[in-house]
């Protein structure tokens, strides 16, 4: 039967609904934010266009996570890419936007090609594009085919998610869109790829062998580290955030990969737990990265630059924006008691629990993965100290930052909503875990009714009998109590004489912004430590007035984007070289052209019986 277009169009299960929640929870404040953001930035016609594109974008994403048919999924998947492409090239006169858009859409399209291949292999077995029909057919699919489908899906969705080394488009595309779109792209769009992996690999295909999970874990670890290291090197605040998205996708994938691994070794409880950790981090990242992009947009709107080396001192000029950014930065650096902390703790805990439950060398592997996650979170903290410190603290480094003003009300509303969510998702961890348990259980196909992840409504307890607890409300309580106590002591005892004076300047007359530590300098220890990967190089130029006196001195330092330099650039060059040499077959001579016809004819006649 040729049943391509099945009647069942929608599929609403907890997994879909969860992603729907993620989509709307970020899109709503972003939309509110855009009122203030777009005003004065674009002409009114263009603003109308953004609204149209924004709606189309959000709708297409909503369809992507709710349709129940591969072909329809593909259609909306591509519409989503297309609309987001239009948003990336929205500032169409910028050379950068065009290039970014090109890289983005080409990479996405290549990813989609892999997805098509995967879906069609599944189709061959199911004779239908319906999710459930395929799910049934996958049970009888040979293991070899399953492996191939898995790899195809991983590459296909990995491109969209930004798994290293397929992340190449992400740092170009995300920053180029208007900021509220960046926040949706980074916060939500790349998550649809995670949805795809969970939906198609875990839910539909079913985990075949344990190397799937291991492969995803390895990729996730690499993604985390590469993402955050590049993020540390970045000067453009939106690109910094984009690279950080790569890192966070890695963390989410750690949870997902772990779940896949646990499914394959038949540890259902842990599988659910790891998937919860992954999903929790997913929604957390959506929230705080959404917030950070909105804040970055506010900074851009207020100053007109995205280069953090030109910013500084904004905390005094934009107190609210900076407070929101600080909150976002704290959350992304996994500081207690905010939401990022909870999900990262859960992920680490999932690794530890895994170690207690598996045997053999895998334990060490899981342990090292966990250690790499810890390294990532340490680097993330450094990265966001740098991002916040250089952008908002100290003295203004240029006239851009000097003229900054606090942004409009609607933008503040958008940001404050997300800030609020950051705190809620940190404190209401138990409630959210319970909800996520349903989602994860549904995806894996387990009943989670008997599983309990909490002691009471304040204390998380990943595994009963292990005495492992986490209670963010309690932590917050302790921090506030002790903080208040400290504050009282600070304020009450004795006299307090506070003098405001210049920063200590070693006896120079006056420090100015040129004496400040720069972002590039801040990241230097990291640049040196990871030089095997970043391959930094520098260029110095001295202009001498005389032998003794140097008139000016310039110093540049760059890092090598090794994936671009050693994988993408050569590949593209090769394709173009091949195409260029092909051009020689058509030099304009009609005799040669006629010759082609005759030769074709002769060859066909000679090899006639081969066909």
């Amino acid at each position, binding site marked *: 039967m040729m049943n391509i277009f099945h009647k069942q169009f929608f599929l609403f299960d907890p997994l879909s609904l969860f992603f729907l929640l993620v989509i709307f929870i970020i899109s709503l404040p972003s939309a509110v934010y855009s009122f203030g953001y777009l005003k004065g930035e674009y002409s009114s016609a263009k603003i109308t266009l953004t609204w149209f594109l924004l709606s189309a974008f959000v709708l297409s994403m909503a369809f992507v996570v709710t349709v129940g048919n591969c072909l329809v999924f593909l259609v909306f998947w591509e519409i989503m890419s297309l609309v987001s492409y239009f948003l990336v090239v929205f500032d169409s006169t910028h050379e950068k936007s065009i290039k970014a858009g090109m890289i983005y859409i080409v990479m996405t399209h290549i990813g989609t090609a892999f997805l098509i291949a995967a879906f069609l292999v599944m189709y061959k077995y199911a004779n239908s594009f319906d999710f459930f029909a395929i799910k049934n057919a996958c049970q009888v699919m040979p293991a070899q085919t399953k492996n191939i489908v898995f790899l195809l899906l991983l590459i296909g969705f990995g491109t969209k998610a930004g798994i290293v080394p397929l992340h190449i488009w992400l740092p170009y595309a995300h920053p180029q869109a208007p900021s509220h779109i960046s926040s949706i792209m980074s916060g939500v769009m790349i998550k649809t790829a995670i949805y795809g992996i969970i939906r198609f690999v875990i839910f539909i295909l079913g985990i075949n062998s344990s190397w799937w999970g291991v492969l995803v874990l390895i990729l996730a670890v690499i993604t985390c580290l590469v993402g955050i290291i590049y993020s540390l090197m970045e000067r453009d605040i939106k690109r910094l955030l984009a690279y950080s998205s790569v890192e966070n996708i890695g963390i989410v994938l750690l949870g997902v990969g772990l779940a896949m691994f646990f499914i394959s070794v038949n540890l259902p409880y842990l599988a659910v737990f790891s998937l919860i950790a992954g999903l929790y981090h997913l929604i957390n990242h959506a929230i705080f990265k959404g917030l950070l992009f909105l804040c970055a947009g506010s900074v851009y709107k207020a100053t007109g630059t995205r280069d953090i080396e030109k910013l500084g001192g904004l*905390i005094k000029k934009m107190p609210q924006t900076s407070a929101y950014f600080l909150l976002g930065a704290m959350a992304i650096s996994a*500081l*207690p008691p905010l939401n990022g*902390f909870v999900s990262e*703790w859960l992920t680490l*805990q999932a690794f*530890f629990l895994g170690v*207690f439950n598996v045997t053999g060398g895998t*334990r060490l592997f899981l*342990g090292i993965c*966990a*250690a*790499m*996650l*810890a*390294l990532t979170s*340490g*680097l993330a*903290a*450094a990265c966001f*100290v*740098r991002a916040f*410190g*250089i952008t908002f*603290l100290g*003295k203004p480094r240029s006239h851009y930052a000097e003229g900054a003003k606090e942004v409009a009300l609607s933008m503040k509303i958008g940001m404050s909503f997300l800030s609020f969510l950051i705190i809620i998702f940190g404190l209401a961890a138990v409630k959210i875990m319970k909800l996520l348990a349903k989602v994860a259980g549904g995806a894996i196909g387990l009943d989670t009714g008997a599983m309990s992840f909490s002691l009471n409504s304040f204390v998380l307890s990943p595994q009963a009998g*292990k*005495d492992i*607890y*986490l*209670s963010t409300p*309690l*932590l917050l309580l302790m921090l506030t109590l*002790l*903080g208040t*106590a*400290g*504050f009282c002591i*600070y304020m009450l005892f*004795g006299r*307090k*004489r*506070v*003098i*405001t*004076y210049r*920063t*200590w*300047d070693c006896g120079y007359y006056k*420090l100015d912004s040129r*004496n*400040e*530590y*720069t972002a590039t*300098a801040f*990241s*230097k*220890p990291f640049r*040196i*430590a990871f030089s095997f990967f970043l391959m930094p190089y520098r260029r110095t130029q001295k202009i001498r007035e005389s032998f003794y006196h140097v008139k000016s001195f310039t110093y540049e330092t760059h890092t090598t984007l090794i994936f671009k330099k050693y994988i993408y650039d050569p590949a593209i060059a090769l394709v173009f070289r091949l195409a260029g040499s092909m051009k020689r077959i058509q030099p304009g001579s009609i005799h040669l052209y006629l010759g082609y016809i005759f030769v074709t004819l002769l060859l066909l006649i000679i090899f006639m019986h081969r066909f």
Partner: protein
Amino acid sequence: MIKIMIAILQLVLFIAAAPILSGLISKIKNNIRLRKGQSILQPYYNLAKLFFKGEVVSETASWIFRVTPIVVLSSTLTAAALIPVFISSSPMHQAGDFLVLVFIFALGRFFMALSALDTGSFFGGMGSSREMFISSLVEPALCMVIFSISLQFGSTDISAFNGIYAVSVSSIVAAIALFLITIAETSRIPVDNQETHLELTMIHEAMVLEYSGRSLAFIEMASYIKQMIFFFLIAQIVFPIALPVFNSLIQLASWILWYLARIIIIAISVVLVEVSVAKMRLFRVADFLGFAFVLGIIAVICAMLGV
């Protein structure tokens, strides 16, 4: 209720005892260097002096700068409250486990690093950059240590510490790794040097350079407590000790003595390292902590093999 009382008592004791450890280290160090050295109680004097002195705040600084001492102190105290020192389980042990400790410290450090950038001083930026560099490298090593320990206990709960267990190869290796981490975290030679204000070498001192008066007192206090926590952890790993038994006064006395002596042993080893090693270049620190990480892995392998 009693639990909460004990918790408060524990915190008070921590606050009271932490500075003395620093004084002790300083004293031993000076003695080894054949100097007379300051009194063991000197840290108290310093704190008192700072506490009652006036403050100078940079005009560039924002509220981050003002709030940091309190955040740092409260986060360190929270960490201290999580550790069960005198009783089998901390009253706060439902708030978090061993891993949470790491994140709590990160909270304080995050604000510390920000406040260093806040004044616009180049030293601050330098210190903050280096501090974040070191701490980010510390984390994986610390993670491996926690990992190996919890493999032995079967849990990441800190309360599991307070019990007698056979000291294994794994815990010794883990303790060595933790020792190296402690050196890095408490700004000791060869990673950092608390005693100097030389621009090119200082890390922690560069961060707190702009602080004075009461704020500085808070920060100093926090770092004493942090040091105490780390020493306590190492001691608990290599020299595990059970709960006090109140059968006789002598028993209690010997328990207290041993309890303190093992911390002093750790302090002495720190001093020995400090006086016998030269300070490293910043970029060598990566190797140093990498070594700690490898030790952590070895500890994990040992734990897995059951030795």
